[in-house]
């Protein structure tokens, strides 16, 4: 399935946001709790990741809070 992930066209097998996110954790050791997921311009709370189905062409942004003034 082709999606736009943080602005990059990406091929993914993940069926849900949870699959996608957990995959990235193991790949990149991200801090799950710090993750903000925007799915097709809507923020999806972590409790809903399990049910959030990814479809071909979806736009997904994985964000987190950083230091700023």
């Amino acid at each position, binding site marked *: 399935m082709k999606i736009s992930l*943080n*602005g990059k066209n990406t091929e993914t097998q993940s069926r849900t946001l949870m699959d996608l996110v957990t995959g*990235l954790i193991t*790949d*990149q*050791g*991200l*801090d799950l*709790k*710090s*993750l*903000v997921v*925007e799915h097709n*311009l809507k*923020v999806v*709370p972590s409790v809903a990741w399990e049910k959030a189905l990814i479809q071909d062409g979806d736009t997904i*942004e*994985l*964000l*987190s*809070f*950083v*230091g*700023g*003034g």
Partner: protein
Amino acid sequence: MPDKQTDTLILGDVEFSSRLFTGTGKFSSRSLIPQMLEASGSQMITVALRRVDPSDRQDNILNYIPDTVTLLPNTSGARTAQEAVRIARIAREAGCGRFIKIEVITDMQYLLPDNHETLLATEILAKEGFVVLPYMMPDITVTKQLYDAGAAAVMPLGAPIGTNRGLEMKPMIEMIIQVSKIPVVVDAGIGRPSQAAEAMEMGADAVLVNTAIATSQDPILSGKAFGYAVKAGRMAYLSRMAEEKLKASASSPLTGFLRD
């Protein structure tokens, strides 16, 4: 003149006893942030939102901010009102609360804000129930428009961000303090506690300091210094000090000693 006893700052429906706002940028180590917050007494701190950087192994910055401190997400990175609005909504839905610092910058050389886009974003977000604190170029006309747009405060810059040059825009900020119907928070450029105190003596309602604290060789002591300075400046404002005088006047009796 406010009551000296019960002198607090209210933004949204939150009451702040500290008039020093701080930021989370530029710290050599995130673990300094909670200590700086305690030393400075600051009750509001800014954070930014960015795409996850896979190379960045740091854990959640929010973990370093006590619940007693109000989060002030900023819209840094936004170059239009629309982008600022999108960031603000994400921040709120991500659980960061209703406060938002609007920061729309198109000038990448001096990093000075775009007042018009800032005004447009303020209008939209205030309607959506945000407590909007717009970072702005000191400007009287825009100050009034931001009030009409529903801003909770105005945040004119003292000097370009990160320069530590202090109140370069002092004359304009003094005028803003005179005309503004909402609190005035001096943001950006404050590099010394004396400059923070000066802003408060002028009648500013608060100051926001990040770079000067985070980049000092001892951010905890610096935070404490700014905390004291902001208190000092506010007290001076409340105790109505005498104006500058052109003529010298003796503090000891002027009679010569053993003369009449």
